[in-house]
Every structure is written in structure tokens, then in C-alpha cells.
């Protein structure tokens, strides 16, 4: 292994470590953001699930811009049975 390769590996290792730190540090916020996005989508689509919903005109106007939120909501519904899994992994419980 040449010197340059060694340095590259070393740098990659550090970069990976930094990434992992960053991921850990934002993990909670990301989880919270997803939850909020889920709630936002749920509120907008309230009439679908039977909760009071905001003005229909507003709903229609917001929907086209809510790809992300609706996707999160759907994913949330699909992962419903594993919500504890997500929480435990966040707190490093195996």
C-alpha cells in the first residue's frame, strides 16, 4: 500500500466517523421532524381518517406540494408495527 493510499484510507475512515457522528447527532431531530411531517399530513387529510379537517379549499391547495409529507405518513403507517424497533434503535438498545 502506497503512502497516498494509506492517507486516503485514513481520510475515508475519519470521514465515515464524522458522518456517523453527524447521523447520531441529528437522529433525534430527524425522527421528530418525520413525526411532525406525519402529523401535518394527517391533519391535512383529516377527512380521510375521520378527524375534523381544515378548510377544503386549503387542503386542495396544499396537497400538490405535500409529496414528502404524504410519503412519510404512508411509510409511518406501514412501519406501525415496528415503531418500538425504531425507538429502541435510537436509544441504542439491542
Amino acid at each position: 500500500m502506497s503512502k497516498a493510499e494509506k492517507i486516503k484510507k485514513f481520510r475515508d475512515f475519519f470521514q465515515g466517523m464524522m458522518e456517523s457522528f453527524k447521523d447520531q447527532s441529528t437522529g433525534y431531530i430527524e425522527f421528530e421532524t418525520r413525526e411532525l411531517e406525519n402529523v401535518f399530513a394527517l391533519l391535512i387529510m383529516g377527512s380521510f381518517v375521520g378527524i375534523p379537517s381544515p378548510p377544503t379549499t386549503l387542503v386542495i391547495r396544499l396537497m400538490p406540494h405535500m409529496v414528502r409529507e404524504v410519503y412519510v405518513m404512508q411509510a409511518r403507517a406501514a412501519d406501525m408495527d415496528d415503531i418500538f424497533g425504531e425507538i429502541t434503535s435510537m436509544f441504542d438498545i439491542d
Partner: protein
Amino acid sequence: MDHDDKPEVREFLIPKKKFRVIFFIGKGGVGKTTSSAATALALARMGYKTLIVSIDPAHNLGDVFMKELSDKPREIGENLYASELDMKKLITSYLKRLEESMKHMYRYLTVINLEKYFEVLSFSPGIEEYATLEAIREILNSGKDWDVIVFDTPPTGLTLRVLALPSISLIWTDKLIELRRKILERRRAISNIKGKQEFKIEGKTFVLPTEEENDEVMKELKAYRKEVESVNTMITDPDVTSVVGVMNPEMLPLYETERAYESLRKFNVPFNLIVMNKMMELQPEIPELKVKIDSQKKVLEEVDEKFKNVEVVKIPFLPREPRGFNELEVIGKYVVGMT
């Protein structure tokens, strides 16, 4: 308060700012259409360019004026324009518009299978109120064309919900804006640490907006808020809007007017006048009708007691329903306060 003998014109019926909006509300059959038509006519005769719009699905404004009316304002006399909004058509076209915009914009519709949701949406409660509010909003936006806009409304329930809508919509929008801010704040925090956040779906990549100015959802929320607020400012401004309650001297219309008064007060919509239609006055007294006269008296006493700061105009029971300009003008002068 009884100001029947007051010679001046009622100020809350004539324009103070750019234009004046008057809603006539009340139980079915108490004479809303006649009173509103008469008032519009009297105001037009005073020189104000007046538009009277019927938003009652069961139209009879045209019958009262004895003219054919449509959803475009038609000049039916000097300074007087009238139209009957076809609410059914309006609601259908409102839904159609929604459907079209959805079909255009939801490319991802099939991805997450939302068709069913939209089917439900067109039957969602309140769609009629929203369509009515949109119609009112459009007319109010053309306010600069008129001095006075008079609305002849459907029976109380629907009208009250429509007038309450702007306030309720504002509450919703404010809550959603608050929630959206929280989401954006968190996204900002994450992208400060990890850089731009991307989101991939169906082979397309979006950058997640973190600033309010770039977030389409926030932009829509704010634009909607502005629109609703402008309507709300108008209908809660006593210098612009007046609500006239029409009733008969009977208990049931009294209860309904009371409820309307309370709920309008809650939403800060100014309620200024009660038109007491079909007042019986018998000289000499007929014993068989004494009960009727007595109950009428009782209702009037209750009105005086319950509606503080609301003027009451009494319109006598007429031998036949007033139709056409001449008969209407007499009543109109009563309401406006010229006689």
C-alpha cells in the same frame, strides 16, 4: 328600541368606506327576500349604485321584482342591479375545479393511491359552505363596482356557518403555519449539520425546503391566510358590513334570531337591525284573534329586552304580498329609515 319615528337614514345601511355590505338573515318564510329587495330598491332610489344578490338555493328574488334574473348582475332599475346565484351550479363547478386541479397536479397520485381520498373529499362536510363563501368572496372582491351590496341569504343555519367560516379558517391556518414552522426549523437544524436534505420518490429527487420563502406549503398557507383575512376584515368591520335579522312576531323566529345574534357576536360580525315583519294591528279588537295579538306583544317585549343596541323596524301585515317596485319602495323606506 323603536325608532320608527326617526326621520334620518340608518347609517349602518349606507356606505361609509368604499362600499356597504348588508346581509339579510332569518328563518325560512319570514320575508327575507321581500325585505332585502325593498331595502336594495330604497337605497338605489337614494342614488347608491346597488347590487342585490340572492344566494338562497330556493330563489324567489326574481319573483319579488317580477323580473327574470340570472347569475350575471342585470340592471333592473336606475342604480339597481340584481342577480340570483345558482348555488347548485356553483357547487358543481367548484368541485369540478378542484377535481381538475387535482388531476393536473397529482402526478404522484397513483404512486400512493390517493384517488379514493378525492372521491371522499367531494362529499366532505361543509363543501356547500365553502362554495358559498367563495361566491361571496368573489362578489366582495368586485366591491369597488358598487356602493351597496345586499345579500339575500338561505335560511339562518347555512348563512351563520358561512359567516363563521373565515374566523374558523383563520384558526386552522394559524395552527398549520405554526406546525409548518416547527418542521422547517428542524429541517434547517439537520441540514446545517448534514448539508442539503434530499428526498427521492419515483426516480425524482427533491431538495427539502428549509426556508419559509422556498417552501411551497408555507407559501400556500400564507396566501390563503391573506385571502381569508381580507374577507374576515370586511365582514367584521361595522363600517362595511351590517347584518339585518328578519323575523315575524312569533316565538320560533325569535329563538332563531336570538341564536343568530349570539353566534354572530361570537365571530364579531355586526348585527344592527331587526325587521319585524307581518305585524298585526287590529282596530277594533277581534276577540278570536286576541291570543295572537297577546303573543305578538310578548315577543316584542322579549325582543326589546334581549337585543340591546339593535334597532327594530316594524312592518305591518299587508293585505297582500308586496311585489313590484312601487309596493316594495314603501317597505324599503321603512327599513332604511326614511319614513
